[in-house]
């Protein structure tokens, strides 16, 4: 009887235990989402902050050259060819394990030789001469030659759904001089050419890809590169197996096998990392887990500044929000340091109101965010936006009450939205938070991914991925009122000063002019306030140092790259 009674309460007990354990974390990838253009080139790098203490001698030897590592990624990346991978990060980074580019960016994002052993540019800046490395072979044993280079330039021009088609638009001619020499003729000098396409575009094997007329349907059989790893197994939505290419020109990779596991839910990946099933997670670690990972003996984090931005995007066409003063008041009412502390637990960088990360070479570092609720109130008082009975201000009978869209699968952004709601309430602006599925938010903010189709929102949590931060042309695209130039002007800004500065960026003839114009543009954006830059989250990745400790942090890219496995630079 006694035993029975206690057993009858077992389900209740289970529930109680469950509730107690419920504090374990569930959250999402903060920098990801459908933020649009993802990936690519960055600046300023730094080595990862790993504590390289392998506990015992034996473990240290094992860790130096482990046989196999299991690595998590956050979604399927197709058949891992240049036309079938899915995301800028980590898809493009995985590509780099199988495929090689002519140049490669080192940990500080400086171009270094890879398939091209040497390169030079003529005085006019339009003729690039590339000398290829000798003795490089494709994974199937065929030699890599200058013909493959010419073929690749031609292929990405013909099949336009590639990330490199725009980057090679200025190429007038590619000439094969001999098996190991190529010259590339440009229609105008392009200071970015070494970074993109040369250090970004994987070389395709002509003997395999010349017969592929539908590259979007390329299979893993077509994933034949010259890179340090061969793709040997692919199970969609499940896993990839990469085997070391023993014939790699820079020597065999330090890890023999990479098992890449595809996760549908980031929190499961972090659990698997803690349980020891994973050796590294290429899915960004959530801020609230960083301390726990740093404190654990068997876990470590690699961390660097991230160039993905988080913004409060404003629809500048909406009634009331079309007043610059209102947008400026919103900016003044926001305290980014509070967001940094509460949402990111300090793992991020304070914003430049002109969008650009202070570590980006384009940044105007003299611009800083001003938090001054008093000034915000004054500004709103001055334009006659008086508070109503409920404390919400109204301008010309229109209440300052706005809906704030946010991705429902992005808890950090939802948390940030809640803080914004409190901060804006202080100055009499009401914010109604509306978490919705990502594609549904995109459809209202950026219908058809085409700003000329208009927009239907008040405010939205938003973010752009790293490449936007490094490309003055794309910064111009953020604010120019002509959709042909302002392809990322999702707030519909129409501001003469911003347009003028963006035009100056477009017209710049050399890097110096472009730099000056870009800084002008940032000041104009900070003043016109089509968005409020909130913060830039750090890139943080968890790994098990006892399994492998040779990770190299490439800034803006993380640790999943060939730099971590072979000595190419």
């Amino acid at each position: 009887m006694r035993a029975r009674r206690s057993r009858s309460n077992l389900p209740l007990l289970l529930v109680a235990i469950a509730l107690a354990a419920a504090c374990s974390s569930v959250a999402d990838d903060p920098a990801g989402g459908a933020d649009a253009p993802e990936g690519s080139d960055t600046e300023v790098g730094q080595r990862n902050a790993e504590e390289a203490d392998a506990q015992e001698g034996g473990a240290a030897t094992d860790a130096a050259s482990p046989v196999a590592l299991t690595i998590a990624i956050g979604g399927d990346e197709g058949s891992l060819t240049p036309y079938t991978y899915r995301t800028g990060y980590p898809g493009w980074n995985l590509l780099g394990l199988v495929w090689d580019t002519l140049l490669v960016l080192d940990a500080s994002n400086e171009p270094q030789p890879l398939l091209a052993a040497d390169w030079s540019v003529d005085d006019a800046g339009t003729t690039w001469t590339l000398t290829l490395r000798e003795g490089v072979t494709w994974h199937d044993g065929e030699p890599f030659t200058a013909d493959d280079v010419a073929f690749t330039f031609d292929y990405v021009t013909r099949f336009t759904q590639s990330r490199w088609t725009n980057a090679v638009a200025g190429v007038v001619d590619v000439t094969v001089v001999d098996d190991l020499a190529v010259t590339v003729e440009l229609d105008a000098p392009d200071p970015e050419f070494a970074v993109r396409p040369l250090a970004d575009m994987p070389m395709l094997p002509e003997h395999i890809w010349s017969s592929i007329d539908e590259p979007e349907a390329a299979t893993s059989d077509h994933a034949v590169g010259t890179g340090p790893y061969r793709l040997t197994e692919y199970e969609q939505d499940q896993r990839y197996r990469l085997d070391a290419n023993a014939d790699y020109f820079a020597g065999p990779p330090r890890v023999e096998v990479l098992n890449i596991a595809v996760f549908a839910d980031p929190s499961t990946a972090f659990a698997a990392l803690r349980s020891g099933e994973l050796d590294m997670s290429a899915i960004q670690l959530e801020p609230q887990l960083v301390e726990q990972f740093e404190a654990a003996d068997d876990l470590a984090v690699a961390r660097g500044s991230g160039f993905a931005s988080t913004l409060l995007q404003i629809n500048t066409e909406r009634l009331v929000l079309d007043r610059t003063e209102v947008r400026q008041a919103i900016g003044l009412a926001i305290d980014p340091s509070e967001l940094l502390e509460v949402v990111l637990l300090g793992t991020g960088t304070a914003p430049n109101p002109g969008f650009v990360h202070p570590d980006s070479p384009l940044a105007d570092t003299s611009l800083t965010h001003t938090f001054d609720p008093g000034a915000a109130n004054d500004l709103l008082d001055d334009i006659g936006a008086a508070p109503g009975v409920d404390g919400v201000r109204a301008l010309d009978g229109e209440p300052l009450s706005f809906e704030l869209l946010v991705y429902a699968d992005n808890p950090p952004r939802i948390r940030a939205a809640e803080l914004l709601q409190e901060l804006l309430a202080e100055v009499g602006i009401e914010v109604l938070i509306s978490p919705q599925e990502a594609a549904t938010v995109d459809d209202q903010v950026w219908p058809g991914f085409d700003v000329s189709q208009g927009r239907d929102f008040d405010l939205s949590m938003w973010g752009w991925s790293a490449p936007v931060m490094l490309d003055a042309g794309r910064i111009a695209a953020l604010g120019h009122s002509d959709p042909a130039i302002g392809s990322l002007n999702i707030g519909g800004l129409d501001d003469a000063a911003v347009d003028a500065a963006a035009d100056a960026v477009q017209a710049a003839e050399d890097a110096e002019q472009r730099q000056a114009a870009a800084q002008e543009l940032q000041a104009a954006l900070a003043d016109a306030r089509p968005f409020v830059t909130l913060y830039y989250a750090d890139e943080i990745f968890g790994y098990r140092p006892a399994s492998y400790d040779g990770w190299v942090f490439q800034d803006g890219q993380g640790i999943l790259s060939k730099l971590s496995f072979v000595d190419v630079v």
Partner: protein
Amino acid sequence: MTTRRLSLRVGQYLLVLLLAVGLNFALPRAMPGGPLATLGGEDVGLLGAEEREQLLAEYDLDRPLPEQFGRYLAGVATGDLGTSFVDRRPVSERLLARLPWTLLLVGSSLVLTTVVGVAVGAWAAGRRERRRDTGTIIGVLAIDAAPPFWIGMLLIAGFGVQLGWLPTFGAVTPGGPGGLGDVLAHLVLPVTTLTLAGFAQTALVTRSSMLSVLGSEPLFVARAKGVPRRRLLGRHALRTAALPVHTLVLMEMGWLIGGAVVVETVFSYPGVGRLLFEAVLARDFPVMQGAFLLLTVTVIAANLLADLTYPLLDPRVRHPVEVTQ
């Protein structure tokens, strides 16, 4: 059941199926957003207007909706579910690759929810006789109210991370030796999650059905005759009470398939549910249609099966005239 009634019933189900086929086409297109981000890849924002149109035209998305619907119907009728927007592989091929995993997951869970549900329900009914099943009911209801993803996360935290007993993701260990043991080990946590989240309905129906049988006259007589308690519960009551449970178990299929979408996502399990989840995020219309169709057919088939097999278990339905009172 007469042939006429049978054909009538099957006809009803066909009508439901037809409606479902129509809805499967309409719902994905009624969702906000579209497949452009999937088709255009990572630099979709930089596409020009012409490239955009060309892209949509390649997938027939520029055609009027009635025409698209006609093509879809013709395809379904001939067994062609189209090709995925994501990788241009045939939808049927992608579904078939996932189906075995979902069958394994949902099948095991169905057996377990039934066994556990009936056992807990019968046990609770037995205790009800002694007025002590309140704790059980509250516990069962609490577990039932817990969302499956949350149960899954707790099991991962407990048995995967803390104890390290069981794998937490996937259907097999990546790069591992594979084999039956590996597959079974990976099945434990997802199946436990689905079972915990699903057994309550069966338990509650079994309990109430048992209670009504226990209070009936034949049972009163049996008890008066001195039939031992265990035999009374197990043989006399449970058998009679099993009828509504049988219907429920087959209806439970639909619930488990819905649960599989969540559980397969939490455990990164490569089933149809996860395929559907990924397809919804990508707005991969053909895969959404195909996966929805597969799930609809399964649920309808389970219901039809319940309808058709019920008379085999219950003579009163087989010979309706004889039971009129």
